[in-house]
């Protein structure tokens, strides 16, 4: 085994690991008696430097300047690390989004465990990076567990805002359910390993699916369904989103969604042939319809914005499955593209909500946003962009993303002789629910723009780093909507 190759391949991750230990170390030694704000500032800066370093290293890897061969490099055997232009770009995207979460976390200090908080954020990011680069059953599982465990712990770290009991309760709930889900997933993986005879899923393709494989996927989908908050395994999501520190909830909703979708697509790789996945499709269809229904109908009744976004996350996971069940390259690309687009918009929305929570000193209700256009026009405009993107209004990214999902779903079987042919009916269901969704998204915007009177709260400024993060996310949302072609083409070219 060539250790220098492994070193070059893992250089970005090394930056992250060093940064997180540095953040912990500095916090434990020099800043022990400093104020919370100073410690948060220092920790977020160290973590930020680490992520920037990682991004630079990734850029070098992507351009092929480092020793990694541009196209497909397997550093270790059995697909444990598959570094090619596609996976590396995805990892870079996750690190970039992680970098944007840091300023939000730094301005919302929800816990005395400042450096641990940032270290866990980085650990989750690190795990997501491995999730998208690993094509090995065990490697991917370990990466997923790294992400999950970090996120469980992060959920518990909300001791500010009189929410510590709730936060701990939500974390425990998340951990218990998550642990069971992981067990299901691992069990499914073990069966799949039995059927495939290998852990490497890059090459494995099944011609047909014996019972064993169907059972394996049943368990895998239960496990991953939990991680992606797909109904009927979504019950944890509203509580966790509401009780977790807002930046952590944002990271659960965005980063782990992208990584989870990428993992789902990779795990479904062995059954890409129609003869093999015909038995699994009904399950996916069920989860898709249930998620869209539960998410969208549940969101209608919410008054807490974070809870509403949790239901919207469930609904959006359902939309993603619409393209996944197509089992075509187009469908995979569409699912991933939508996951990215959704993650960017929802991260932005959470960012704005996080500012509001700080100003209010409690969890914001929709009503707390009333008159926001007067008090903070910039944030209101950003929220307009994010929410309309989630609602799927052009020219924002959410629209193109949703269109691509439906496009790919119908593309898989465009012939229609009978109403249940192809995925027309599923697309119709998704469209009906996106009309429903517009209602609750507009409810937020109504509070923001229509109401004249303003809620009572202090208008602490957002601060430069967080403003930049929100601005970048808003620009990304617009840019991906107006000119999606480069990203779509990149995904089609290098990933699927």
């Amino acid at each position, binding site marked *: 085994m060539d250790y220098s190759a492994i070193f070059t391949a893992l250089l970005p991750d090394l930056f992250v690991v060093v940064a997180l230990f540095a953040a912990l170390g500095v916090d434990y030694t020099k800043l022990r008696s400093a104020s919370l704000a100073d410690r948060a500032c220092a920790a977020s800066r160290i973590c930020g430097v680490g992520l920037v370093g990682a991004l630079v290293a990734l850029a070098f890897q992507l351009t092929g300047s480092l020793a990694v061969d541009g196209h497909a490099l397997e550093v270790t055997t059995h697909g444990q690390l598959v570094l090619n232009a596609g996976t590396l770009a995805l990892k870079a995207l996750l690190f970039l989004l992680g970098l944007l979460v840091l300023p939000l976390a730094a301005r919302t200090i929800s816990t005395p465990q400042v450096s641990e908080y940032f270290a866990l954020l980085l650990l989750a990011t690190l795990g997501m990076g491995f999730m998208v680069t690993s094509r090995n059953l065990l490697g991917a599982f370990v990466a997923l567990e790294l992400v999950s465990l970090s996120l469980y712990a992060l959920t518990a770290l909300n001791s500010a805002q009189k929410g510590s009991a709730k936060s701990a309760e939500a974390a425990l709930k998340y951990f218990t359910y998550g642990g069971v889900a992981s067990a299901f997933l691992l069990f499914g993986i073990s069966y799949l390993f039995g059927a495939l005879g290998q852990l490497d899923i890059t090459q494995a393709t099944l011609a047909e699916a014996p019972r064993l494989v169907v059972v394996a996927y049943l368990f895998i989908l239960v496990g991953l369904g939990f991680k992606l908050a797909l109904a009927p395994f979504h019950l944890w999501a509203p509580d966790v989103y509401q009780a977790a520190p807002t930046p952590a909830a944002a990271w659960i909703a965005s980063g782990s969604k992208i990584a989870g979708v990428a993992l789902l697509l990779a795990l479904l790789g062995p059954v890409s042939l129609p003869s093999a996945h015909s038995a699994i499709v009904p399950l996916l269809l069920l989860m898709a319809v249930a998620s869209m229904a539960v998410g969208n109908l549940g969101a209608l009744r919410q008054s807490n914005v974070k809870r509403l976004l949790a239901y919207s996350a469930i609904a959006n996971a359902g939309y993603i499955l619409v393209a996944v069940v197509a089992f075509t390259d187009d469908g995979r690309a569409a699912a991933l593209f939508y996951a990215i687009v959704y993650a960017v918009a929802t991260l932005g929305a959470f960012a704005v909500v996080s500012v509001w929570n700080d100003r209010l000193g409690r969890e914001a209700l929709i009503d707390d946003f009333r008159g926001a*256009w007067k008090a903070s026009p910039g944030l209101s405009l950003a929220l307009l962009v994010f929410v*309309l993107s989630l609602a799927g*209004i*052009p*020219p924002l990214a959410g*629209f*193109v993303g949703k*269109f*691509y999902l*439906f*496009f790919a779903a*119908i*593309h898989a079987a*465009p012939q*229609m002789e009978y109403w249940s042919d192809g995925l*027309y009916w599923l*697309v*119709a269901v998704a*469209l*009906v629910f*996106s*009309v429903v969704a*517009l*209602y609750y998204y*507009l409810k937020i*915007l*109504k509070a923001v*723009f*229509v109401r004249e009177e303003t809620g009572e709260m202090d208008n602490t400024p957002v601060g430069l780093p967080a403003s930049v993060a929100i601005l970048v996310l808003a620009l990304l949302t617009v840019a991906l909507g107006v000119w*999606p*072609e480069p990203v*779509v*083409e990149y995904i*089609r070219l290098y990933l699927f």
Partner: protein
Amino acid sequence: MIALLTVIFSFVGALVCGLMPARWHRAIRWVALSTAGLGFAAAFCCALRYTGPGMEDIISRTWIPSMGVGFITGFDGISLPLLLVTGLVAVAGVLFTWNLDHRADQFYAFYFALIGGVYGVFLSMDLFLLFVFYEIAIVPKYFLIAIWGGAKREYAAMKLVMYSFGGSALVLIGMLALFFASGLNTFDLRALMEVDFSSGLQAVVFPVMFVGFAILAGMWPFHTWAPQGHSAAPTAASMLLAGVVMKLGAYGCLRVAVGLMPEGAMVWAPWVAVFAVINIIYGALAALRQEDFKYVIGYSSVSHMGFVLLGIGTLHLTGMTGAVLQMFSHGVIGALLFAMVGTVIYTRTKTRMLDELHRLMERMPGIAWVFIVVALASMGLPGFSGFVYELYVILGAWAALPTWIVIGAGLGVFATFGYTLAKIHEAFFRERSTGDDASDNNNGESDADYPPMTLPEKAGVALLLGASLVIGLCPWLLTNHIAGSLQLLLNRFN
């Protein structure tokens, strides 16, 4: 490129207005007026340069090739009248909201975002692009009504948006079905128009797309958003809604549903005509029953859109020419009616309820006469555009549809006479019968004459009424182009 300038001016105008501080509302209205004026000027240049009958001023760029999407714009004789009416109504809308000072920056930002979307729909020669502009036009409507509207504005705005979005969901499904059935991997309307889709597919997809678009055109029984939305909206927005946004739906029906699926259209045309006649009669009768002046105009819009649908349902050159002409005519006259009721009369009397209006003929004679002329023009007085289109539509219906449908439409015309005259009487000539002293005192106090029209109001009336008069006297200015382009579309119907 000139045609696309309409869209560009509007979106830039929206941006500029949005970025100006709200307290500069006097400057903002001039910016708004020049933006709308520039848009109209660009549309007018298109009209001057257009030779017809084919597509002109085509701009074609690739946009999202992975999904077969191109950025293709151009216009022909069908879009031309609609571009013109959008320009006219946009200018007049600014004139009739001249004194707006409440959040004027945001008002005009949403206003021009809506107008840019509308222009974009009329210019798109790519189905995807058309859909994008169609949806861009939805959200500004919500805010225009919900923020600046009148009573029940939030409910009306939400209802309108839900209906529009639901309609566009139907359109989206139809769009994807056509895209994949064509096998061309393109949303280019010119290419799709050459495709002969199988009759089975057309018979299924046509009603889906037609209804999807027709919801926005106010087709019965999906019309209920229209009177409520129009009545709750601020004047400029209700002018736009009645004048051009409803035309988006009708234009989509014509250009996309009928244009791409001739066989489907032939199968379903009788039903379209039946629903159109229901629209005409139902709208007229409902207008007769309304006490709120704005609702009268709202239902009259529904009735008038029935004539557009009837014209489309004839699938006959004359009838369809009438339909497009009616889109122009009602765009101008309908918008003017809303302006008269929502701004000119309302700002003076402070009420829209017909039974609260009192001897307006004596107290605002000038305005009353203008309103009567406009209402008669809307009814189909010869000399105005309303007469010409009615003639075309009815003639087309005689030629192509069963007699009983024509008789139905004829009854609709009579009902139109009925409500127009009845409501003119109620509003301007009826003495309010109040006996008790309190209201007598009240009357004595408010019996003074109302101020005459202001200069912007006069300009707006002159612009819209003049346009109707010009087309009423010289319909060939538009009908030649309309008929030429429609003939190209109808060539496939054999």
